[in-house]
């Protein structure tokens, strides 16, 4: 696997950990297809998740289209990972 793919996979795992801790969801329930709604992750939980992302990765992630429109865990994680990788240049 190329380095960038490993980096992204590792990032995704770390983002899932943040969703679990800040969204107060059991890690086992967080599948790629699950929607944030089905996990009862509410708008203020997303704010707390992005706060911890900022602390961990040093990147400010505003709620833009990609984040707001992410329909499930996989697309949310992807959108956040994109922002983190972008900030690393």
């Amino acid at each position, binding site marked *: 696997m190329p380095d960038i793919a490993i980096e992204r996979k590792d990032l995704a795992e770390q983002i899932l950990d943040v969703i679990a801790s800040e969204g107060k969801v059991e890690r086992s329930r967080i599948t790629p297809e699950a929607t944030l709604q089905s996990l009862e992750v509410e708008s*203020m939980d997303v704010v707390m998740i*992005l*706060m911890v992302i900022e602390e961990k990765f040093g990147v*400010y992630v*505003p*709620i833009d*289209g990609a*984040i*707001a429109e992410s329909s499930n865990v996989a697309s949310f994680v992807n959108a956040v990972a994109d922002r983190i990788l972008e900030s690393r240049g």
Partner: protein
Amino acid sequence: MEPARVVVTGIGAVSAAGVGIEALWWAARTGKSCVAEANLPHEGSNRVKIAAQLKTFQPEDFIDPKVLPYCDRFSQFALVAADEALAQAGLDRGRRLGGRVGVVIGTAVGGITTIDELCFVELVMKGRTDPLAVPRIMGSAAASQVGMRYGCTGPTFGVTSACASGAQAIGIGAFLVRAGVVDQAIVGGSDSTITALNIRAWETLRVLTPDRSRPFSAGRNGMVLGEGAAVFLIESERSARQRGAAPLAEIAGYGTSSDACDIVRPDAEGAATAMRLAIEDAGLDPDGIDYVNAHGTGTVANDIAEADALGRIFGRRLRELPVSSTKPVHGHTLGAAGAVELAVTIMAMREGTAPPTINWLGPDPKVDIDPVPNEARRVPMRAALSNSFAFGGINACLVVTRAE
């Protein structure tokens, strides 16, 4: 007795564009953004560095040295805007206006600049606590200072409903005039919140753009904070006629509602209800509205909910109705927004020009409106609507019509 009609006979404004309604209107109409890197009194952990900040303001040019120590920046702005409004209305400080004049000034956060300074001096510097902190911080400080300056002894209070504060203050003031409780009222909104602490607090909600605010546009990613005030002298049509004052516009309708749902997520039905009530209160139907100055913060959520709400009111006509947000020019002035944007709306109506929504890149399929992208447009107007939708789910809308 017929309820009184309420007219505006004076308008004053302070904004990032400068002191005066003309500076504000010129910036809004030409789409000249006042957003730049902010000067912050103390350094903080904020990552967002931009705001629409008034950098040239010297309060001592406008306010007596005996009064100034009692005035947080939000009160200073309100006083300066009130001076302009009352001068235009033909009233001066030479005589006390008395018990038939009320003062209602909205603010979302009141003396936050003073609180910021107090924390820094007290907690960081271990210095001397400002004994005037309490009268500077209180949310009603601007209303009291304006009332003292002009000797208004009628109903006087602050209104606070986050970003709907300014619109609610004007609406409630208009109701006081309409009901005959007062003949005249000094109404408006004021806020100044450009501190590192406040920017940081807003950015943790993820609603601030790190680059450019572009309401209703594809690729939008948030709002930009602003500061300022707008103040109006409103009075019964009869009061204006008796003293020979020229009406600039009529405050024809006010509507307000609450989502009572989510503390931060906007609800389209609540917003639509406030618009509907304001239009009905003006005795109009939606076809009578020629221009909408939107709340249009530039956040993903607000703009989708607002476009949805506008669709519920204006139906298929929405695509032909000019709807613009001037927030990328003067910033989101929070508790002043309803007042600052009503001032812009009245100027737009008087001049027959819809100001543009700047920084617009292209349409968002979820926002099916005509945002008057990037350039002002000639639009003859008889009536216009100004929207304010707040955190906490509070919605307030005002309808203005041409003064006959």
